Protein backbone atom coordinates (compact mmCIF):
# COMPACT_ATOMS: atom_id res chain seq x y z
CA UNK A 1 0.00 0.00 0.00
CA UNK A 2 2.91 2.33 0.72
CA UNK A 3 5.12 1.23 -2.16
CA UNK A 4 5.97 4.77 -3.16
CA UNK A 5 7.41 5.40 0.27
CA UNK A 6 10.02 2.64 0.18
CA UNK A 7 12.75 5.13 -0.66
CA UNK A 8 11.83 7.19 2.37
CA UNK A 9 11.04 4.45 4.85
CA UNK A 10 13.69 1.83 4.31
CA UNK A 11 13.81 -1.15 6.63
CA UNK A 12 16.93 0.28 8.33
CA UNK A 13 14.89 3.31 9.34
CA UNK A 14 12.14 1.19 10.87
CA UNK A 15 14.80 -0.80 12.70
CA UNK A 16 16.49 2.27 14.21
CA UNK A 17 13.08 3.75 15.06
CA UNK A 18 12.07 0.61 16.95
CA UNK A 19 15.46 0.13 18.60
CA UNK A 20 17.32 3.41 18.68
CA UNK A 21 21.07 2.97 19.32
CA UNK A 22 22.86 4.95 22.03
CA UNK A 23 19.57 6.07 23.52
CA UNK A 24 20.79 7.03 26.98
CA UNK A 25 21.82 9.92 29.14
CA UNK A 26 25.62 10.27 29.31
CA UNK A 27 26.53 11.47 32.78
CA UNK A 28 30.16 12.30 31.97
CA UNK A 29 29.54 14.00 28.62
CA UNK A 30 31.61 17.12 27.99
CA UNK A 31 29.23 18.46 25.31
CA UNK A 32 25.48 18.49 25.67
CA UNK A 33 23.18 20.35 23.27
CA UNK A 34 19.40 20.42 22.93
CA UNK A 35 17.87 20.39 19.44
CA UNK A 36 14.31 21.44 18.82
CA UNK A 37 12.03 21.68 15.81
CA UNK A 38 9.26 24.12 16.76
CA UNK A 39 7.29 23.21 13.65
CA UNK A 40 6.55 19.69 14.83
CA UNK A 41 7.74 19.65 18.43
CA UNK A 42 10.59 17.18 17.88
CA UNK A 43 13.12 17.39 20.70
CA UNK A 44 16.43 15.75 21.28
CA UNK A 45 19.42 16.12 23.55
CA UNK A 46 22.79 15.11 22.13
CA UNK A 47 25.61 14.03 24.45
CA UNK A 48 29.22 13.83 23.29
CA UNK A 49 32.45 12.87 24.98
CA UNK A 50 35.35 14.41 23.10
CA UNK A 51 38.90 13.59 24.23
CA UNK A 52 41.99 15.79 24.32
CA UNK A 53 42.93 14.68 20.80
CA UNK A 54 39.62 16.06 19.47
CA UNK A 55 38.25 12.61 18.83
CA UNK A 56 34.64 11.69 19.67
CA UNK A 57 34.94 8.85 22.18
CA UNK A 58 31.24 8.48 22.85
CA UNK A 59 27.91 9.80 21.57
CA UNK A 60 24.36 9.30 22.85
CA UNK A 61 20.96 10.97 22.78
CA UNK A 62 17.57 11.32 24.42
CA UNK A 63 14.38 12.75 23.05
CA UNK A 64 11.30 12.09 20.98
CA UNK A 65 10.60 12.45 17.31
CA UNK A 66 9.34 10.75 14.20
CA UNK A 67 10.87 7.67 12.61
CA UNK A 68 13.02 9.76 10.26
CA UNK A 69 14.48 11.96 12.99
CA UNK A 70 14.96 9.05 15.40
CA UNK A 71 16.71 6.93 12.78
CA UNK A 72 18.85 9.88 11.75
CA UNK A 73 20.13 10.60 15.26
CA UNK A 74 20.50 6.90 16.07
CA UNK A 75 22.61 6.29 12.95
CA UNK A 76 24.57 9.46 13.58
CA UNK A 77 25.60 8.48 17.10
CA UNK A 78 26.83 5.13 15.77
CA UNK A 79 28.83 6.60 12.94
CA UNK A 80 30.52 9.56 14.61
CA UNK A 81 32.09 7.49 17.39
CA UNK A 82 35.81 7.38 16.71
CA UNK A 83 35.75 10.28 14.25
CA UNK A 84 37.76 13.42 14.85
CA UNK A 85 35.85 16.65 15.23
CA UNK A 86 36.94 17.69 11.74
CA UNK A 87 35.81 14.40 10.23
CA UNK A 88 32.43 14.69 11.95
CA UNK A 89 32.05 18.25 10.72
CA UNK A 90 32.83 17.13 7.16
CA UNK A 91 30.24 14.37 7.49
CA UNK A 92 27.64 16.92 8.65
CA UNK A 93 28.26 18.94 5.49
CA UNK A 94 27.98 15.87 3.26
CA UNK A 95 24.82 14.75 5.01
CA UNK A 96 23.29 18.18 4.68
CA UNK A 97 24.08 18.28 0.95
CA UNK A 98 22.67 14.80 0.47
CA UNK A 99 19.36 15.50 2.22
CA UNK A 100 18.78 18.92 0.75
CA UNK A 101 19.74 17.77 -2.75
CA UNK A 102 22.29 20.56 -3.09
CA UNK A 103 24.82 18.21 -4.57
CA UNK A 104 23.95 15.47 -7.05
CA UNK A 105 27.25 13.64 -6.81
CA UNK A 106 27.35 12.58 -3.19
CA UNK A 107 29.89 9.86 -2.54
CA UNK A 108 27.44 7.28 -1.19
CA UNK A 109 30.30 5.03 -0.20
CA UNK A 110 31.85 7.69 2.01
CA UNK A 111 28.54 8.52 3.60
CA UNK A 112 27.95 4.82 4.23
CA UNK A 113 24.83 3.72 6.05
CA UNK A 114 23.54 7.27 6.10
CA UNK A 115 22.58 6.83 2.46
CA UNK A 116 19.31 5.27 3.70
CA UNK A 117 18.22 8.81 4.52
CA UNK A 118 18.87 10.15 1.01
CA UNK A 119 15.15 9.62 0.24
CA UNK A 120 14.10 12.66 2.24
CA UNK A 121 15.33 14.96 -0.51
CA UNK A 122 12.13 14.00 -2.38
CA UNK A 123 10.07 15.04 0.65
CA UNK A 124 10.91 18.68 1.41
CA UNK A 125 8.51 18.69 4.37
CA UNK A 126 10.61 16.02 6.03
CA UNK A 127 14.16 17.30 5.47
CA UNK A 128 14.19 19.03 8.84
CA UNK A 129 13.32 15.74 10.53
CA UNK A 130 16.49 14.18 9.12
CA UNK A 131 18.77 17.14 9.68
CA UNK A 132 17.80 18.15 13.24
CA UNK A 133 20.31 15.73 14.79
CA UNK A 134 23.06 16.96 12.50
CA UNK A 135 22.46 20.64 13.18
CA UNK A 136 22.63 19.75 16.85
CA UNK A 137 25.91 17.92 16.26
CA UNK A 138 27.27 20.90 14.33
CA UNK A 139 26.47 23.18 17.27
CA UNK A 140 28.06 20.74 19.70
CA UNK A 141 31.24 20.56 17.62
CA UNK A 142 31.42 24.33 17.47
CA UNK A 143 30.82 24.38 21.20
CA UNK A 144 27.67 26.45 20.77
CA UNK A 145 25.86 24.94 23.68
CA UNK A 146 22.64 26.93 23.61
CA UNK A 147 19.61 25.09 22.26
CA UNK A 148 19.47 24.58 18.51
CA UNK A 149 16.32 25.23 16.56
CA UNK A 150 15.73 24.24 12.97
CA UNK A 151 13.69 27.37 12.39
Amino acid sequence: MFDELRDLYQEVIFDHNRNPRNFRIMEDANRRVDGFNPLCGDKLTLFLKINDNHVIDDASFQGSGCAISTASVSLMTEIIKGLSENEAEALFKQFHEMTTGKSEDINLEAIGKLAVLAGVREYPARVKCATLAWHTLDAALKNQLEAVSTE
Partner: protein
Amino acid sequence: MSTFPIEQIRADFPILGEKIRNKPLVYLDNAASCQKPQAVIDAIVHTYSREYANIHRGVHTLSVKATDKFEGAREKVRAFINAASTKEIIFVRGATEAINLVAQSYGHSQLKAGDEIVISAMEHHANIVPWQMLCQQTGTVLKVVPINQKGELMFDAFEQLLGEKTKLVAIAHMSNALGTINPVEKIVAAAHAKNIPVLLDGAQAIPHMPVDVRALDCDFYVFSGHKLYGPSGTGVLYGKQALLEAMPPYQGGGDMIRQVTFEKTTYAGLPQKFEAGTPAIAEIIGLGAAIDYVSAVGMANIAAYEAELLTYATEQARQIQGLNIIGQAEHKGGILSFTLDHIHPHDIGTMLDSLGIAVRAGHHCAMPVMDFYGVPATARASFAMYNTRQEIDILLQGIQSLIEVFG
Protein backbone atom coordinates in the same frame (compact mmCIF):
# COMPACT_ATOMS: atom_id res chain seq x y z
CA MET B 1 -27.91 12.90 5.70
CA SER B 2 -29.68 11.86 2.53
CA THR B 3 -31.18 15.31 2.07
CA PHE B 4 -27.81 17.05 2.16
CA PRO B 5 -26.80 17.84 -1.45
CA ILE B 6 -23.31 16.41 -1.04
CA GLU B 7 -22.70 15.47 -4.67
CA GLN B 8 -23.73 18.90 -5.87
CA ILE B 9 -21.52 20.56 -3.24
CA ARG B 10 -18.52 18.44 -4.17
CA ALA B 11 -19.01 19.34 -7.82
CA ASP B 12 -18.79 23.01 -6.86
CA PHE B 13 -15.22 22.60 -5.56
CA PRO B 14 -12.90 22.05 -8.53
CA ILE B 15 -9.91 20.98 -6.43
CA LEU B 16 -11.79 17.94 -5.15
CA GLY B 17 -11.34 16.46 -8.62
CA GLU B 18 -7.56 16.66 -8.34
CA LYS B 19 -5.28 13.70 -7.86
CA ILE B 20 -2.48 13.70 -5.31
CA ARG B 21 0.29 11.18 -5.89
CA ASN B 22 -2.00 9.53 -8.46
CA LYS B 23 -4.84 9.04 -5.96
CA PRO B 24 -8.05 11.01 -5.62
CA LEU B 25 -7.55 13.82 -3.12
CA VAL B 26 -9.09 13.24 0.30
CA TYR B 27 -8.81 16.67 1.85
CA LEU B 28 -9.12 16.51 5.64
CA ASP B 29 -7.08 19.56 6.65
CA ASN B 30 -10.03 21.93 6.78
CA ALA B 31 -9.26 23.28 10.23
CA ALA B 32 -6.08 24.74 8.73
CA SER B 33 -7.80 26.10 5.64
CA CYS B 34 -10.79 25.17 3.51
CA GLN B 35 -10.95 24.70 -0.25
CA LYS B 36 -12.81 27.20 -2.43
CA PRO B 37 -16.01 26.74 -4.41
CA GLN B 38 -16.12 27.86 -8.04
CA ALA B 39 -18.39 30.76 -7.05
CA VAL B 40 -15.60 32.27 -4.91
CA ILE B 41 -12.96 31.71 -7.57
CA ASP B 42 -15.30 33.24 -10.17
CA ALA B 43 -15.94 36.29 -7.99
CA ILE B 44 -12.22 37.00 -7.78
CA VAL B 45 -11.63 36.36 -11.48
CA HIS B 46 -14.61 38.52 -12.39
CA THR B 47 -13.43 41.37 -10.19
CA TYR B 48 -9.91 41.36 -11.58
CA SER B 49 -11.00 40.88 -15.18
CA ARG B 50 -14.08 43.13 -15.28
CA GLU B 51 -14.60 45.35 -12.26
CA TYR B 52 -11.33 46.11 -10.55
CA ALA B 53 -10.23 49.51 -9.27
CA ASN B 54 -9.27 50.97 -5.93
CA ILE B 55 -12.20 51.73 -3.66
CA HIS B 56 -13.67 54.67 -1.74
CA ARG B 57 -11.69 57.34 -3.56
CA GLY B 58 -12.27 57.19 -7.27
CA VAL B 59 -15.00 59.19 -8.98
CA HIS B 60 -14.73 56.99 -12.04
CA THR B 61 -17.16 54.21 -12.86
CA LEU B 62 -14.92 51.25 -12.08
CA SER B 63 -14.05 52.59 -8.67
CA VAL B 64 -17.70 53.09 -7.88
CA LYS B 65 -18.49 49.53 -9.01
CA ALA B 66 -15.65 48.04 -6.97
CA THR B 67 -16.66 50.10 -3.94
CA ASP B 68 -20.25 48.90 -4.24
CA LYS B 69 -19.17 45.27 -4.40
CA PHE B 70 -16.73 45.69 -1.53
CA GLU B 71 -19.31 47.39 0.70
CA GLY B 72 -21.82 44.80 -0.47
CA ALA B 73 -19.54 42.15 1.03
CA ARG B 74 -19.59 44.06 4.30
CA GLU B 75 -23.38 43.95 4.33
CA LYS B 76 -23.24 40.20 3.59
CA VAL B 77 -20.99 39.69 6.61
CA ARG B 78 -23.27 41.82 8.77
CA ALA B 79 -26.32 39.81 7.82
CA PHE B 80 -24.43 36.51 8.12
CA ILE B 81 -23.51 37.09 11.77
CA ASN B 82 -26.54 39.30 12.49
CA ALA B 83 -24.59 42.37 13.56
CA ALA B 84 -26.66 45.52 14.16
CA SER B 85 -24.75 47.68 11.68
CA THR B 86 -22.09 47.51 8.98
CA LYS B 87 -20.15 49.98 11.14
CA GLU B 88 -19.45 47.01 13.38
CA ILE B 89 -17.80 44.98 10.61
CA ILE B 90 -14.09 45.70 10.25
CA PHE B 91 -12.23 43.98 7.42
CA VAL B 92 -8.78 42.74 8.39
CA ARG B 93 -6.36 40.13 7.05
CA GLY B 94 -7.60 37.34 9.30
CA ALA B 95 -8.63 36.34 12.80
CA THR B 96 -5.05 36.81 13.95
CA GLU B 97 -4.95 40.43 12.85
CA ALA B 98 -8.37 41.03 14.42
CA ILE B 99 -7.14 39.82 17.81
CA ASN B 100 -3.98 41.90 17.50
CA LEU B 101 -6.13 44.90 16.67
CA VAL B 102 -8.21 44.46 19.81
CA ALA B 103 -5.14 43.74 21.95
CA GLN B 104 -3.32 46.83 20.77
CA SER B 105 -6.18 49.30 20.40
CA TYR B 106 -8.62 48.23 23.11
CA GLY B 107 -5.85 46.85 25.31
CA HIS B 108 -3.67 49.95 25.28
CA SER B 109 -6.54 52.36 25.73
CA GLN B 110 -8.52 50.45 28.38
CA LEU B 111 -6.14 48.22 30.33
CA LYS B 112 -3.45 49.15 32.81
CA ALA B 113 -0.81 47.38 34.87
CA GLY B 114 -2.33 44.81 37.20
CA ASP B 115 -5.51 44.35 35.14
CA GLU B 116 -6.22 40.78 34.12
CA ILE B 117 -7.13 39.12 30.83
CA VAL B 118 -8.71 35.66 30.98
CA ILE B 119 -8.04 33.15 28.21
CA SER B 120 -8.30 29.32 28.20
CA ALA B 121 -5.79 26.49 28.05
CA MET B 122 -7.11 25.39 24.66
CA GLU B 123 -6.40 28.63 22.78
CA HIS B 124 -4.70 28.85 19.41
CA HIS B 125 -1.44 30.80 19.54
CA ALA B 126 -3.28 33.70 17.87
CA ASN B 127 -5.38 34.08 21.01
CA ILE B 128 -2.39 33.80 23.35
CA VAL B 129 0.54 35.69 21.90
CA PRO B 130 -1.14 39.08 21.20
CA TRP B 131 -2.24 39.17 24.84
CA GLN B 132 1.21 38.18 26.06
CA MET B 133 2.66 41.01 23.99
CA LEU B 134 0.15 43.41 25.54
CA CYS B 135 1.05 42.13 29.02
CA GLN B 136 4.73 42.79 28.37
CA GLN B 137 3.94 46.28 27.14
CA THR B 138 1.50 47.34 29.84
CA GLY B 139 1.97 45.06 32.84
CA THR B 140 -1.44 43.45 32.50
CA VAL B 141 -1.63 39.83 33.62
CA LEU B 142 -2.78 36.77 31.69
CA LYS B 143 -4.97 34.23 33.52
CA VAL B 144 -5.61 30.82 31.98
CA VAL B 145 -8.77 28.75 32.51
CA PRO B 146 -7.80 25.06 32.80
CA ILE B 147 -9.35 22.26 30.74
CA ASN B 148 -10.26 18.71 31.80
CA GLN B 149 -8.99 15.47 30.24
CA LYS B 150 -11.85 15.43 27.75
CA GLY B 151 -10.69 18.81 26.54
CA GLU B 152 -13.55 20.83 28.00
CA LEU B 153 -13.25 24.20 29.65
CA MET B 154 -13.59 23.92 33.44
CA PHE B 155 -16.44 26.33 33.90
CA ASP B 156 -16.25 26.59 37.70
CA ALA B 157 -12.58 27.51 37.46
CA PHE B 158 -13.49 30.08 34.81
CA GLU B 159 -16.03 31.75 37.07
CA GLN B 160 -13.54 31.79 39.92
CA LEU B 161 -10.98 33.57 37.76
CA LEU B 162 -13.39 36.43 37.06
CA GLY B 163 -12.66 39.13 39.60
CA GLU B 164 -12.37 42.85 40.21
CA LYS B 165 -9.21 43.02 38.12
CA THR B 166 -10.57 41.10 35.12
CA LYS B 167 -10.97 43.52 32.24
CA LEU B 168 -11.37 41.18 29.29
CA VAL B 169 -12.20 37.55 28.50
CA ALA B 170 -10.87 36.11 25.22
CA ILE B 171 -11.96 32.54 24.45
CA ALA B 172 -12.19 30.30 21.39
CA HIS B 173 -15.72 29.52 20.23
CA MET B 174 -14.35 26.19 18.97
CA SER B 175 -10.89 24.71 19.55
CA ASN B 176 -8.83 23.98 16.43
CA ALA B 177 -6.74 21.32 18.14
CA LEU B 178 -9.49 19.46 20.01
CA GLY B 179 -12.75 20.35 18.31
CA THR B 180 -14.28 21.42 21.63
CA ILE B 181 -17.21 23.83 21.26
CA ASN B 182 -17.21 26.08 24.29
CA PRO B 183 -20.40 27.14 26.11
CA VAL B 184 -20.01 30.68 24.86
CA GLU B 185 -23.48 31.87 25.92
CA LYS B 186 -22.72 30.89 29.52
CA ILE B 187 -19.24 32.40 29.27
CA VAL B 188 -20.61 35.73 28.04
CA ALA B 189 -23.36 35.76 30.67
CA ALA B 190 -20.93 35.06 33.52
CA ALA B 191 -18.52 37.75 32.33
CA HIS B 192 -21.24 40.31 31.69
CA ALA B 193 -22.62 39.74 35.18
CA LYS B 194 -19.37 41.38 36.27
CA ASN B 195 -19.29 43.95 33.47
CA ILE B 196 -16.39 42.24 31.72
CA PRO B 197 -16.36 42.36 27.91
CA VAL B 198 -15.83 39.13 25.95
CA LEU B 199 -13.94 38.47 22.73
CA LEU B 200 -14.79 35.21 20.97
CA ASP B 201 -12.27 33.70 18.57
CA GLY B 202 -14.59 32.28 15.95
CA ALA B 203 -11.93 31.21 13.44
CA GLN B 204 -12.88 27.53 13.81
CA ALA B 205 -16.56 27.95 14.60
CA ILE B 206 -17.76 30.20 11.81
CA PRO B 207 -17.58 27.64 8.95
CA HIS B 208 -19.38 24.96 10.93
CA MET B 209 -22.38 26.43 12.74
CA PRO B 210 -24.77 29.38 12.68
CA VAL B 211 -23.31 32.38 14.52
CA ASP B 212 -25.48 35.25 15.74
CA VAL B 213 -23.39 37.88 17.50
CA ARG B 214 -26.44 39.64 18.92
CA ALA B 215 -27.85 36.42 20.35
CA LEU B 216 -24.43 35.59 21.77
CA ASP B 217 -24.15 39.16 23.05
CA CYS B 218 -20.36 38.95 22.71
CA ASP B 219 -18.46 42.23 22.56
CA PHE B 220 -15.98 41.16 19.89
CA TYR B 221 -16.11 38.25 17.45
CA VAL B 222 -13.26 37.47 15.07
CA PHE B 223 -12.86 35.09 12.15
CA SER B 224 -10.85 34.42 9.01
CA GLY B 225 -12.23 34.22 5.49
CA HIS B 226 -10.03 31.35 4.36
CA LYS B 227 -11.60 28.87 6.78
CA LEU B 228 -15.06 29.91 5.58
CA TYR B 229 -14.40 28.71 2.00
CA GLY B 230 -13.27 32.25 1.17
CA PRO B 231 -9.94 33.73 0.07
CA SER B 232 -6.90 33.88 2.32
CA GLY B 233 -5.85 37.34 3.49
CA THR B 234 -9.39 38.22 4.52
CA GLY B 235 -10.91 38.34 7.97
CA VAL B 236 -13.42 40.13 10.10
CA LEU B 237 -13.44 41.89 13.41
CA TYR B 238 -16.95 42.36 14.73
CA GLY B 239 -17.21 44.72 17.66
CA LYS B 240 -20.09 46.43 19.38
CA GLN B 241 -20.29 49.91 17.97
CA ALA B 242 -19.84 51.76 21.26
CA LEU B 243 -16.66 49.81 22.04
CA LEU B 244 -15.22 50.38 18.57
CA GLU B 245 -16.08 54.09 18.74
CA ALA B 246 -14.14 54.43 21.97
CA MET B 247 -11.05 52.66 20.63
CA PRO B 248 -8.17 54.53 18.99
CA PRO B 249 -7.03 53.53 15.48
CA TYR B 250 -4.77 50.50 15.22
CA GLN B 251 -2.79 51.51 12.16
CA GLY B 252 -2.46 54.89 10.49
CA GLY B 253 -2.58 55.55 6.77
CA GLY B 254 -4.86 56.17 3.86
CA ASP B 255 -8.62 55.64 4.05
CA MET B 256 -8.76 55.84 7.86
CA ILE B 257 -8.61 59.63 8.08
CA ARG B 258 -11.05 62.50 7.85
CA GLN B 259 -8.48 65.22 7.54
CA VAL B 260 -4.71 65.30 7.74
CA THR B 261 -2.39 68.22 8.28
CA PHE B 262 1.14 67.96 9.62
CA GLU B 263 -0.16 69.31 12.92
CA LYS B 264 -3.15 67.06 13.45
CA THR B 265 -5.16 64.25 11.97
CA THR B 266 -8.82 63.59 12.58
CA TYR B 267 -9.92 60.05 12.01
CA ALA B 268 -12.62 58.62 9.84
CA GLY B 269 -15.67 57.07 11.43
CA LEU B 270 -16.41 53.37 11.64
CA PRO B 271 -15.54 51.11 9.98
CA GLN B 272 -12.90 53.02 7.97
CA LYS B 273 -11.11 54.12 11.15
CA PHE B 274 -9.68 50.61 11.44
CA GLU B 275 -9.06 49.96 7.75
CA ALA B 276 -5.87 51.83 6.90
CA GLY B 277 -4.50 51.27 3.43
CA THR B 278 -5.87 49.45 0.42
CA PRO B 279 -7.54 46.22 1.55
CA ALA B 280 -7.72 42.89 -0.27
CA ILE B 281 -10.51 44.21 -2.52
CA ALA B 282 -11.15 41.28 -4.85
CA GLU B 283 -10.59 38.80 -2.03
CA ILE B 284 -13.12 40.47 0.23
CA ILE B 285 -15.61 40.47 -2.64
CA GLY B 286 -14.75 36.74 -2.82
CA LEU B 287 -15.51 36.43 0.88
CA GLY B 288 -18.94 37.88 0.14
CA ALA B 289 -19.40 35.15 -2.48
CA ALA B 290 -18.35 32.51 0.06
CA ILE B 291 -20.99 33.80 2.47
CA ASP B 292 -23.62 33.63 -0.27
CA TYR B 293 -22.52 30.06 -0.95
CA VAL B 294 -22.66 28.73 2.62
CA SER B 295 -25.87 30.65 3.28
CA ALA B 296 -27.51 28.92 0.33
CA VAL B 297 -26.52 25.53 1.73
CA GLY B 298 -27.59 26.69 5.19
CA MET B 299 -25.33 26.81 8.24
CA ALA B 300 -27.70 24.63 10.27
CA ASN B 301 -27.66 21.98 7.51
CA ILE B 302 -23.86 22.13 7.40
CA ALA B 303 -23.66 21.75 11.19
CA ALA B 304 -26.01 18.75 11.16
CA TYR B 305 -24.17 17.04 8.29
CA GLU B 306 -20.74 17.53 9.85
CA ALA B 307 -22.00 16.29 13.21
CA GLU B 308 -22.99 13.02 11.51
CA LEU B 309 -19.57 12.79 9.88
CA LEU B 310 -17.87 13.30 13.23
CA THR B 311 -20.04 10.69 14.97
CA TYR B 312 -19.27 8.18 12.24
CA ALA B 313 -15.53 8.95 12.23
CA THR B 314 -15.32 8.75 16.01
CA GLU B 315 -17.18 5.42 16.18
CA GLN B 316 -14.95 3.94 13.49
CA ALA B 317 -11.73 5.35 14.95
CA ARG B 318 -12.54 3.84 18.34
CA GLN B 319 -12.41 0.38 16.74
CA ILE B 320 -8.74 0.83 15.87
CA GLN B 321 -6.45 -0.56 18.52
CA GLY B 322 -3.62 1.80 19.46
CA LEU B 323 -5.47 4.88 18.22
CA ASN B 324 -6.02 7.52 20.89
CA ILE B 325 -8.47 10.34 20.27
CA ILE B 326 -7.21 13.63 21.74
CA GLY B 327 -10.19 15.78 22.67
CA GLN B 328 -13.45 14.06 23.51
CA ALA B 329 -15.61 16.95 24.59
CA GLU B 330 -19.35 16.49 24.90
CA HIS B 331 -19.92 19.38 22.50
CA LYS B 332 -17.52 19.01 19.67
CA GLY B 333 -17.12 20.08 16.05
CA GLY B 334 -15.79 18.01 13.15
CA ILE B 335 -12.23 17.43 14.32
CA LEU B 336 -10.61 14.06 14.91
CA SER B 337 -7.26 14.73 16.56
CA PHE B 338 -5.42 11.51 17.35
CA THR B 339 -2.17 9.76 18.12
CA LEU B 340 -1.13 6.20 17.30
CA ASP B 341 0.93 4.16 19.74
CA HIS B 342 4.61 4.13 18.73
CA ILE B 343 4.03 6.07 15.50
CA HIS B 344 4.89 9.75 15.34
CA PRO B 345 2.27 12.08 13.77
CA HIS B 346 4.80 13.21 11.15
CA ASP B 347 5.14 9.67 9.88
CA ILE B 348 1.35 9.34 9.90
CA GLY B 349 1.10 12.54 7.84
CA THR B 350 3.62 11.44 5.21
CA MET B 351 2.15 7.95 4.89
CA LEU B 352 -1.42 9.21 4.54
CA ASP B 353 -0.22 11.77 2.00
CA SER B 354 1.11 8.94 -0.15
CA LEU B 355 -2.50 7.69 -0.26
CA GLY B 356 -3.78 11.10 -1.34
CA ILE B 357 -5.07 11.95 2.14
CA ALA B 358 -4.28 15.42 3.50
CA VAL B 359 -4.27 15.61 7.31
CA ARG B 360 -2.37 17.92 9.61
CA ALA B 361 0.46 16.57 11.72
CA GLY B 362 1.88 18.84 14.36
CA HIS B 363 0.91 20.97 17.31
CA HIS B 364 -1.72 22.96 15.37
CA CYS B 365 -0.42 26.24 16.78
CA ALA B 366 -1.71 25.15 20.17
CA MET B 367 1.48 24.01 21.93
CA PRO B 368 0.01 24.42 25.44
CA VAL B 369 -2.71 21.91 24.48
CA MET B 370 -0.04 19.41 23.41
CA ASP B 371 1.81 19.95 26.69
CA PHE B 372 -1.42 19.30 28.59
CA TYR B 373 -1.84 15.90 26.95
CA GLY B 374 1.89 15.17 27.14
CA VAL B 375 2.26 14.63 23.40
CA PRO B 376 4.63 16.48 21.05
CA ALA B 377 2.03 16.59 18.31
CA THR B 378 -1.11 14.92 17.01
CA ALA B 379 -2.44 13.94 13.63
CA ARG B 380 -5.64 15.79 12.89
CA ALA B 381 -8.37 15.02 10.42
CA SER B 382 -10.79 17.93 10.23
CA PHE B 383 -14.02 17.83 8.29
CA ALA B 384 -15.85 20.26 6.05
CA MET B 385 -19.24 20.15 4.38
CA TYR B 386 -17.76 18.54 1.25
CA ASN B 387 -16.31 15.51 3.05
CA THR B 388 -18.02 12.12 2.95
CA ARG B 389 -18.28 8.87 4.89
CA GLN B 390 -16.37 7.19 2.06
CA GLU B 391 -13.47 9.57 2.64
CA ILE B 392 -13.50 8.72 6.33
CA ASP B 393 -13.37 5.03 5.37
CA ILE B 394 -10.33 5.74 3.17
CA LEU B 395 -8.67 7.56 6.07
CA LEU B 396 -9.30 4.77 8.53
CA GLN B 397 -8.17 2.06 6.09
CA GLY B 398 -5.00 4.09 5.56
CA ILE B 399 -4.44 4.27 9.30
CA GLN B 400 -4.92 0.50 9.64
CA SER B 401 -2.37 -0.11 6.90
CA LEU B 402 0.24 2.17 8.35
CA ILE B 403 -0.13 0.52 11.76
CA GLU B 404 0.64 -2.77 9.99
CA VAL B 405 3.66 -1.30 8.21
CA PHE B 406 5.10 0.09 11.43
CA GLY B 407 4.36 -3.18 13.19
